[in-house]
């Protein structure tokens, strides 16, 4: 059996992913990419970080390899490992090595979730050396100019365990994402779901109300993603309060009082 052939074209994004720029982030990302600087995306969940990466990969015409990090992610999950076949061992590239080889963009989503020792493997890649040493094969991959690295994290988590090491974060250009401004968010919700401007505006107003509750029992307010979910349900004929309840209130919290308050808010609006 041969080593599994790399198919970078399968990671190419052919149709333009919908993305509304919040500011200068598109040109900044492009410039960082051209200057071979890796990028760190900060922002709350569901505000469009992953969509932004898809959009940028499409714009730059590079394959996008996304890794969702979790607390059991090891260095070999990123770099690669030997597999055994009937009579020999075969090296299998991990997603990071794949991206380096094919000159793609590697996006490590929610990087703080990965184990601390794992994140260190990206260090030589993320500074001007741009090398990926593969310890087990003795190989050192030099990243081509097309290779790009991006990581994301959500600084809103209050856990001290979920913080990014200085030695990691100081290798990146940081782009900060927020929830879009209300009229932009309304446009996004409408575009993604087709719910109509008026109901999209109400959803956005509702989201602002839940964001008012952040810190008073809610960890996060409703994200743009949740609004799109609710809007899609509404387009499929679910009543507005019920859509808000199931797509937003129940998704945000399990606290019955908080759910009751959020439900009252949505019922008051629609």
């Amino acid at each position, binding site marked *: 059996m041969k080593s599994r052939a790399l198919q970078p074209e399968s990671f190419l994004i052919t149709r333009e992913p919908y993305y509304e720029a919040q500011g200068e982030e598109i040109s900044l990302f492009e410039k960082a990419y051209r200057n071979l600087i890796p990028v760190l995306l900060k922002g709350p969940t569901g505000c469009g970080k992953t969509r932004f990466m898809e959009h940028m990969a499409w714009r730059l015409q590079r394959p996008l390899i996304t890794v969702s990090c979790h607390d059991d992610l090891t260095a070999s999950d990123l770099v690669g490992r030997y597999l055994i076949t009937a009579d020999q061992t075969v090296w299998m590239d991990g997603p990071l090595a794949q991206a380096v080889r094919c000159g793609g963009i590697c996006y490590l989503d929610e990087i703080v979730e990965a184990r601390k020792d794992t994140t260190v493997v990206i260090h030589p890649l993320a500074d001007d050396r741009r090398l990926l040493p593969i310890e087990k094969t003795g190989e050192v991959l030099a990243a081509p100019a097309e290779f790009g690295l991006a990581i994301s994290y959500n600084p809103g988590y209050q856990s001290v365990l979920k913080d990014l090491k200085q030695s990691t974060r100081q290798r990146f250009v940081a782009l900060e994402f927020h929830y879009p401004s209300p009229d932009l968010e309304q446009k996004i919700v409408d575009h993604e779901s087709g719910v109509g401007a008026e109901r999209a505006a109400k959803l956005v107003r509702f989201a602002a109300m839940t964001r008012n509750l952040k810190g008073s029992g809610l960890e996060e307010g409703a994200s743009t993603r949740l609004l799109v979910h609710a809007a899609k349900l509404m387009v499929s004929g679910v009543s507005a309060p019920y859509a808000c309840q199931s797509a937003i209130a129940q998704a945000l919290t399990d606290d019955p009082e908080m759910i009751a308050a*959020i439900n009252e*808010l949505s019922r008051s609006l629609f």
Partner: protein
Amino acid sequence: MTATGDTGDTQRALSAAMLEDRLDEMLDAVLSIRRSTATAAAALAGLARADQDYACHWIEVIAKTNPELAYHFASHVTAAITRMRREDSDAWIIEAMDTYDKLGLYPAVAVLADAESFAAVRDGQARTATLEASAPMLELFLQGLSGRKLKLAPSERLYTDTTTLFLPARLAVLPTRDANRMLYKIMATHLWAQGWFGTFRGDPRALRAEWERYAEPERAAQLFCALETIRLDACLERELPGLYRELRTLRTEVPAAWKEACAPLAKKGASVDDTHQAVAALYGGALPVAPVYQGIIDVDAVVQAMGERIQQERAALQNALAKLAGGQSHTPPPDARFTVSEEPGPQGEVQLMLDGQLLAAPPDVQNLLQSIFQDLGGIPDEYLVAAGDGGYAPDNEKRAEDVWKGTYHEDGAFLYNEWDHRREHYRKDWCVLRELDVHPVHDAFVRETLRKYAGLSARLRKTFEALRGENAVQRRRKNGDDIDFDALVDALADLKSGRELGDRLFLRSRRIARNIAVMLMVDMSGSTKGWINDAERESLVLLSEALEILGDRYAIYGFSGTTRKRCELYRVKEFAEPYTDLVRARISGIRPQDYTRMGVAIRHLCKRLDQVDARTKLLITLSDGKPDDYDGYRGEYGIEDTRQALLEAKRSGIHAFCITIDHDARAYLPHMYGPANYVLIDDVRKLPLKISDIYRHLTS
């Protein structure tokens, strides 16, 4: 008690004489020549046996709290039982006991005497909504509507001072409880709307000045309220159409004669000035019936609350601007010039600008700006001057309302409920607990302890080092980081001999980290004086040394106190604190104090444990005896409260364990901690030798 009472069938009702005997026995302390139980007994004799038993049971229970209260209870109980269903009379008794706890004997007697009105309230209760039950949801609801936090408080009158919304403590106006809950929401939203849609904007005193232009200012004020309600209804219809649909069902008809004058009020952009004009047009006519959700306007309360808030917010804003302009240094560059844009933002929010550039204000600043805008209708220029830390600390200020809530004189204290097993209810905010520091004693105690147990301590070091979380390699895994060559050789041999190739061929390295937080709760009651105290301190030294090797997070607190008003916890070491000489000196400084009220200490330490992020949480108690305090916290009461506190701990995922030297412990500890969760040490001198082993067993 007579022979028939003991042996006769339990169904037959007791006679007046038998009842009188029983009552006399229970109420002996408060009877006199002029005061007997004859009347009460005669009344009770008319009841069925089950009711008599019920009454006697409660008389006995209450007599333990206060015999005088029990005497009054005995005189009213017959009427109450006849009048009320059992669950209502239960509630009546608990209400009386709670009143006794909070306010004392006479108010409690008043509750007992007024069983009739209590029963009437209970009858209405099926449809009553209470503020207490609705408040948590309503507070979140209001905070969602706008950023500003509003408090809710019970009051006879429906009004707001723009900081607190005053609502009736209970509502039974509408036929069902759900409808009354909805009414709460509408009332609260309406009061919120007064602030949000600018009833008081600018100077609230201007309202009164307007009314005083009329012959009868009181009448003008009432008219103003009615018309302002119409204006706010229209605002709510635009902003919160869903809520308005509910509100509409409660609206009252606007008189035909008012229609014309009221038309401008419903227009978008109508302000309080339009309401004043409508007052001028309609003054003198009869007032229509006010809708049930319409409140009153208390100008004085608003003036006071706004005055305080405006001062605070001005300082807080200037402070925040200084930070914005100056970064971390808090000293703004002298030429930084803040302005607000003429145009409101897309959500009608105030937009802050620095040197002509739009500035994304952080949420707290945005909330401040919004709040100031609500009060003043704009941001005055002098507010936008960045000023350094002017010694203003909004969080530390004592608030007037806290004085009335009674927390002020219990400054820095924590209030906890206590379980009363006889009532099967919590006594609310019953214990007042403070955290104090142990006075450190820098002597040779720790050094000598370590020398005394030098052999033991070396052995402990070895055993605990072995427990420490380390990289462990797991062999023969289906997948992993590296190839397990031993497994591979075996597998190939299998293959050659015609068997199947195994698939468990990988090594996987995993760090198995200990993730334990342990709270050590040490008995500092007076009974530990002498040997026990020494043994406790020595144990703490040895255990701390061991825990340092292990790397488990731990905290040490001592507990003691006298009566429920003075429960004390002594900090020896907090979770985040390193094991320093100061901690050692505090261990050395642990001295016997007063009594052992365990429940409240467990509740507080569990709260501390809850704040720690750990997979396993342990609460280990070092104790020398039963829970015991000066004011009746002993025997069954103390044991049951402690048990209840431990059950609460279990519910929040904390494992409780007790190490005791009380030889009688087998009688009550299994009931409190559960059969496997305690250890009895026969000889207190062995405690230091054993404690580390006990801990090791517990956690591995």
